[in-house]
């Protein structure tokens, strides 16, 4: 427990100080931390899933509060909670089948072998049902406990029955944690390799002699463009520099090093150049439930220019960037103001500020993100393929449970 707490505290500090760059890195670290929390959590004999859920939720609440703007943290917390619920449901279904078999015939091994494919089918059905009826999980659990009681009372007693029951319960608890950890490992793997699956679709979208515009820096965009280059597609890339962080300089240098024809333009030249651009391909910080995009600052301007010139605006986003929240007032609540020193040197204006004697005030605004409405987005390319913005809510339903959309609700009820 102290080890886990130390890990959590370290991660909280990094989140608060904004030291982790990029939502992909943040998502991966969050998943790894939650995996440690789960592996070291002691599971009681009863309500094991609830204990895991409460532990993950408590840690997740702290992580989300540390950096509210980094939506990847909340996304991963909800994904892990969803994984726990799914694994518990599948195990409950398997347990019911197991009890039935043992009640029918205790010593027939052949019968157990025949039941194995039935178990896997039941697990798949249970997993599929969970997406449609998450609230029914508790009902299923209650049914399981009720069905467990009658066999016990029906038997006349004896030590053999008690022993077999205790063995089954212990193995079930350990199996749940093991399955959850395996699923989290798969999630971490998906986060790491999402750009590969996105890049595989590059040749379907980029043709020969195309001109592509991008803004900022995104590893997904870089791999996407390079995959098209590897397929012998000769095209040009215009990179807007993305002042005042100048991420575009990094991206342009990397693209040129990999052999792509690259031209760096200023952000103000986007409208001028977009009339000669065939496609805009950008990364995203987060994709909201309504299909809107939280993106690097300046991207709403690019999207408006693209719409004006009928240029497709394509957003590349891994599944870890899908956020089930609706963007109410996104420019304010989902934004972060960075240091004014990136825009203006204080020394240059200190003299005229004094001479003004307070009559003239000066504010310097340096936001980090822009919100792009879904109507400006032509296409989302995720690791599961291309999607319309209007489909994103359905895609999000595959990854999250309805109970987890608000992380803070249960602890309040509990307290």
């Amino acid at each position, binding site marked *: 427990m102290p080890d886990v707490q130390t890990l959590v505290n370290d991660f909280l500090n990094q989140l608060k100080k904004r030291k982790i760059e990029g939502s992909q890195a943040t998502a991966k670290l969050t998943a790894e931390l939650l995996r440690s929390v789960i592996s070291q959590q002691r599971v009681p004999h009863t309500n094991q899933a609830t204990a895991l859920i409460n532990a993950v939720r408590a840690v997740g609440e702290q992580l989300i509060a540390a950096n509210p703007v980094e939506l990847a943290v909340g996304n991963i917390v909800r994904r892990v909670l969803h994984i726990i619920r799914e694994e518990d449901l599948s195990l409950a279904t398997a347990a019911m089948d197991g009890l039935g078999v043992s009640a029918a015939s205790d010593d027939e091994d052949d019968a157990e072998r025949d039941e194995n494919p039935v178990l896997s089918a039941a697990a798949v059905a249970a997993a599929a049902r969970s997406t449609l009826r998450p609230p029914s999980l508790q009902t299923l659990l209650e049914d399981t406990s009720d069905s467990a009681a009658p066999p016990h009372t029906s038997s006349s007693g004896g030590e053999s029955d008690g022993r077999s029951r205790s063995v089954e319960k212990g193995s079930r608890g350990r199996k749940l944690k093991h399955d959850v950890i395996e699923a989290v490992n798969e999630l971490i793997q998906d986060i790491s390799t999402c750009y590969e699956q996105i890049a595989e679709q590059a040749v379907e979208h980029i043709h020969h002699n195309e001109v592509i515009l991008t803004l900022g820096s995104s590893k997904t965009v870089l791999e996407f463009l390079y995959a098209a280059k590897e397929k012998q597609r000769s095209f040009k890339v215009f990179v807007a520099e993305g002042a005042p962080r100048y991420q575009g300089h990094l991206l342009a*240098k990397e693209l040129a090093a990999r052999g792509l024809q690259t031209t760096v333009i200023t952000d103000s030249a986007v409208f001028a150049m977009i009339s000669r651009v065939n496609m805009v391909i950008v990364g995203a910080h987060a994709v909201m439930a309504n299909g809107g995009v939280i993106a690097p600052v300046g991207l709403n301007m690019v999207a408006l220019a693209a719409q004006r010139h009928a240029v497709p605006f394509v957003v590349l986003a891994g599944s870890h960037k899908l956020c089930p929240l609706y963007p109410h007032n996104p420019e304010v609540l989902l934004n972060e103001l960075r240091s004014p020193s990136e825009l203006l040197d204080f020394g240059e204006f200190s003299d005229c500020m004094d001479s003004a004697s307070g009559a003239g005030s000066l504010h310097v605004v340096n936001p980090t993100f822009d919100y792009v409405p879904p109507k400006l987005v032509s296409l989302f390319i995720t690791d599961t393929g291309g999607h319309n913005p209007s489909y994103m809510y359905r895609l999000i339903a595959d990854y999250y449970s309805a109970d987890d959309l608000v992380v803070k609700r249960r602890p309040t009820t509990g307290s």
Partner: protein
Amino acid sequence: MDPSRRAPRAVIDPVPKIRQVGFFAPPESSQSGPLDPTHSSPPISNSLSPVMIPPPRHLSDNLLLHDPRPAASPLSSASAVAAAGSGNSFDSADFFPAPLSPAMPSSSYSSRIATGGASDGGYFKGNGAGGKLAASSFPRGGFDLTAMKAASLVPASELTTVSVVNDSLGIPEKEKGNKTGGSAVEVKDQPNSSKQQKPKPKTSKAERRALQEAQRAAKAAEKGEGSKASGTAASTNPKPAKAVKPAQKVDNAAIAASEKKGGEIPPEKDRKKDAPQPRLQYDDKSRVEKAKRRAVVKQTEARNRVELFRHLPQYERGSQLPDLEAKFFHLSPVHPLVYKVGLQYLTGDISGGNARCIAMLQAFQEAIKDYKVPPEKTLVRDLTAKIGSYVSFLIECRPLSISMGNAIRFLKSRIAKLPLTLSESEAKASLESDIECFISEKIILANKVIVKHAVTKIRDGDVLLTFGSSSAVEMILLHAHELGRQFRVVVVDSRPKLRGQLLLRRLVENGLSCTYTHINAVSYIMHEVTRVFLGASAVLSNGTVYSRVGTACVAMVAHAFRVPVIVCCEAYKFHERVQLDSICSNELGNPDVISNVLGREDVKHLDGWANIENLQLLNLVYDATPSDYVSMIVTDYGMVPPTSVPVIVREYGREQVWI
């Protein structure tokens, strides 16, 4: 005294050519009556005065009125002689229209006869009405109408021939009168014979073909003139000046006559202005090489050129300034003040359309003050060429803005319009005062009018957004602050020049509440903005606002957020050219300023970018904002929508002509 003596010598040489043309004219004009209405050649203005005077006397058939005719005809011959004396290039141009000039009087004769008498309405309608009248006269047929036309055609040609011959021979006026009367009597007898009517149709076909070929040759000559920008400007302007002189000299000129002349001159200019000459395209290698030979500055092609902008100059920076500084004492053709202004353009010390235009005009003013007419040259010709070389030098330092182009066009038209009777000092003083008037009226006073109009759009509680640094917008904000309006200013800036910081400093020093941000954050800040004020480098005829790069982005985001966009631009920055995108015409700045960020040592990713083969840096200077993003254009003619820009362009052009 010497120039006056040399003038007749120059006149003597072309006279034999005029004789030949004059002798050929009678048969052409007599046969080509039906074609007259279709002629729309430039010499219409030159032949207006003889057309106006003879018809009423001819209708009255009073022999006593024949005497004023010689008084009118010497004026046209005098103008022809003046045109011939101006130079060889004019000779070639004038000879082509020469056969057409006798035909024009006949067309007005026929139109008058058809209408049954002199009527002002007919003349105001112009060539179109003449064509209709001529066409209608044929169905009426009748021997009488045809005979009357023939009678009216012949006297005009005879008059022209006689006047030319008389001038060359130097016969006194009395003898002119006698010969004119004799030829008139002879002409009257010819129509009576019926034999002459039969051969007319046959010869008219052949003559029509000859006339058409002459017209084509004239058009080809005009196109050839079009290729030379300065040549065309110089050759175009003297013609209206000559048209004005006969009107002044003729004492008997009626008010109607002057109105007709005034009405006809602008259409000619409108036709020529309808098609601005194409600019030098730098992907045309032959022309670029020609320009390089005359160039003062040594230009080196940039290594990593952007292919999309091959038609624009992309030269290496950094080598131009030291080269020019080394050449300072060897550049005798360029005036030192013009040289200084060019260097300031190159270093960027003078930037902005108004500042560059004023600096250029003041340098030209000083150059004109120090100018002396070389021997054996005329002031108009040589000064125009000198100004042209200065402009070429400035273009090499930095391409001209549209406002500068308009100012140069104004200056060249003023030089061309100088009367030949003025002395050198008077001409120079006139030009200097013209330049002073242009600066004070078209730039400084225009800005004051713009401020007065735009301030009415600022109310208490407004949040005004502006982009970059515009002198007009700065004046507006400071004036509104003086009036006690309570508002906030959002200054949006963009790399690489960061001009907004200069504006921000001046606003804060004057006590305005300001917010500063980069152009990427314009979507974030636009929620609280109530008005957007933008400056412009130019406004084009289709309403496109051509301004510093980034203006289009700001206007687009403002339009998306339903915020009104107000463009403040002086009328002298309006241009009849049209443009749809920002690529066909633009200016490329120094790419190196993109790779370096002032004050940010950590941003060094693009150092040594020129060595990377696949990497280019593009530093655009201007962009084109579509007109539907602009709510209003505030100019010294008032507040207009973008759709009214061509109206102002026409009125502005007309106003400049009559000044």
